[in-house]
């Protein structure tokens, strides 16, 4: 059994909107082990990024309330002091951000920005820092590292900048990497390169990775385990192979059904009607996905949906997965019957 690196227990992140707190992450429990890539998937607004920022304590403290536990090592990161948190950030946990165009300080050289976390977490001389930085740049696939070291972010392409962002996250050999949509802002060819790089680095460094994405292709390529989130809750957790072969929750099945594929070339693409409700308008009673699958009778949902272990290590929320079907499948059957008779 692998050692857990990070254990999140019943994490609830609430934002203050006009004096009231609304939970964007609503009772998430999740474990990440050594050398494991856990992908968190879901639509925009389902709480994925809020979850990542909560782990690092990067939300605006004044307007955010954090409950539950984020256990890292033998500490709960939600209750440690600010200075202690700063010792963990950048050293034990590295973070890769979504948009490399804005994630770097425009006024500092690449070298300076990679060396910065070393200033706080490692006792190195200036020349040692530079040596390490050049090595990191090489490791993230930058060939003319001497030149890039001196350059400013605006002189680099998006793909190069994302490599720099990754180098920053890796600067102090973290135990855990948080990658918040690391390829979303890049174009497709660069996406593939960055994913390959991350996989390669993960194989070398044996870090745990939390990979946040809405791209199921990325999930299939990178993840060991998948966590599907909807409206702030985890609705399904399974090994990646199991999830793609045997998706259970209606939301997971809808997501997978919305991917264009060769197999269904003549079929209409499935559309999940509606949007994720905003955190103020979310009905927190009952199954949260119910309004978007309104053809499923109410009694098929649980009153207080719980996680059920449907198969070994495969967890799913609510009971509605048992009877769920896609209406277009039934319509197709009916038409078939009609034309035959």
């Amino acid at each position, binding site marked *: 059994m692998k050692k857990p690196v990070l254990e999140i227990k019943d994490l609830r992140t609430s934002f203050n909107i006009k004096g009231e707190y609304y939970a964007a992450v609503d009772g998430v429990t999740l474990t990440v082990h050594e050398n494991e890539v856990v992908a968190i998937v879901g639509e925009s607004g389902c709480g994925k990024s809020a979850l990542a920022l909560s782990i690092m304590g990067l939300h605006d403290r004044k307007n955010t309330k954090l409950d539950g536990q984020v256990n890292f090592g033998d500490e709960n990161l939600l209750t440690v002091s600010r200075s202690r948190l700063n010792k963990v*950030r950048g050293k034990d946990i590295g973070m890769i951000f979504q948009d490399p165009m804005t994630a770097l300080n425009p006024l500092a050289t690449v070298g300076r920005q990679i060396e910065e976390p070393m200033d706080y977490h490692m006792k190195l001389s200036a020349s040692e820092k530079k040596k390490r930085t050049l090595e990191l740049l090489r490791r993230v696939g930058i060939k003319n590292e001497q030149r890039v070291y001196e350059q400013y972010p605006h002189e680099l392409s998006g793909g190069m900048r994302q490599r720099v962002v990754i180098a920053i996250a890796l600067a102090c050999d973290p135990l855990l990497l948080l990658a918040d949509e690391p390829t979303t802002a890049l174009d497709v060819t660069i996406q593939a390169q960055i994913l390959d790089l991350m996989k390669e680095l993960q194989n070398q460094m044996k870090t745990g990775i939390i990979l946040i994405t809405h791209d199921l292709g990325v999930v299939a390529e990178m993840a060991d385990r998948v966590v599907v989130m909807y409206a702030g809750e985890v609705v399904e957790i399974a090994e990646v192979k199991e999830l793609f072969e045997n998706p259970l929750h209606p939301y997971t099945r809808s997501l997978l059904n919305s991917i264009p594929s060769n197999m269904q070339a003549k079929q209409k693409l499935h559309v999940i009607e509606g949007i994720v409700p905003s955190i103020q308008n979310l009905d927190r009673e009952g199954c949260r996905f119910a309004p978007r699958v309104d053809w499923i009778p109410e009694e098929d949902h649980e009153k207080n949906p719980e996680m059920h272990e449907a198969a070994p290590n495969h967890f799913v929320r609510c009971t509605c997965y048992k009877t769920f079907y896609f209406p277009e499948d039934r319509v197709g059957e009916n038409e078939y019957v009609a034309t035959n008779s």
Partner: protein
Amino acid sequence: MLKFILRRTLIMIPQLILLSLVIFVLAKAMPGDAVTGAFMGNPDATPEQIEKIREKFGLNDPWYVQYGRWIGKAVKGDFGQSYTHQQPVTTLIAGRVENTVLLSLFTAIMIYLIAIPLGIVAGRWTDSWADKLIVTYNYVAFATPLFVFALLMLFIFAFLLGWFPYGGSVDIRIESGTWDYVVSRAKHLFLPVMSAAIIGTVGTIQYLRNDIIDQKNKDYVKTARSKGVPEGRVYTRHILRNSLLPIAAFLGYEITGLISGSVFIETIFSYQGLGQLFIQSIGLRDFTVVTALVLISGTAVVVGTMLSDIILSIVDPRIRIE
């Protein structure tokens, strides 16, 4: 870099020519000229005499001839004679340039001394009581006309309390070069500088505050925090560098703006500077002085703009030109 500065300087030449042309034509279009200004209401001056004087000063020549004559000399630093003061315009201005430059320089320093700490406090601790206080000050000062505030300062600190002199630039009884002379100058500068700075700083405070609020939500700040950079350093190393950049770049405009904009302050504090000379000369239709002053302040603005561009190109790597 040198090439950029050179090119930026060359662009100034057509700007200055255009500026001088516009100033000259506008000045000519003003009703009356130096002669009517000087002899207005003098019953002893006959129309023939006036016409003679006009002829003597070349005021009857076509405007482009007059312009050529004026600009040709101006380039060599000769702006002609002041009609009313009966001395070369250059001498007249030179005697006052120092006063205005001192006033503007200290005002600019004061503006930044007030704006930078207040802007940082308000921007970093948004919605705190300190921020609310600073924002209130901003709104009040923004709505207060400079001349009203300056008069109030004069009334309180010069008239009621008697801490500072009413006006002038130095006590004329004191010999120049002595320590007392410096003290006297400082005392005379204090009220005009403080009045102009307390009112003039609000734009910079507001700008800095808003820019910090803007910067602190940017992704690169999250990156800095995720590196474990302590909060204070996040501000000093990351946010402030980005926020102070436009303010540093604005320095050029600010100082030249103050030089050409000191009319109110100098008039209220009877401070012998260019602004006061300007207002007096307009009243007297002292054409040569007015055009010279407008040309100088116009040039100051053009040079200030160039200075700002150059400063910005030095501090911001994104527009550094190879």
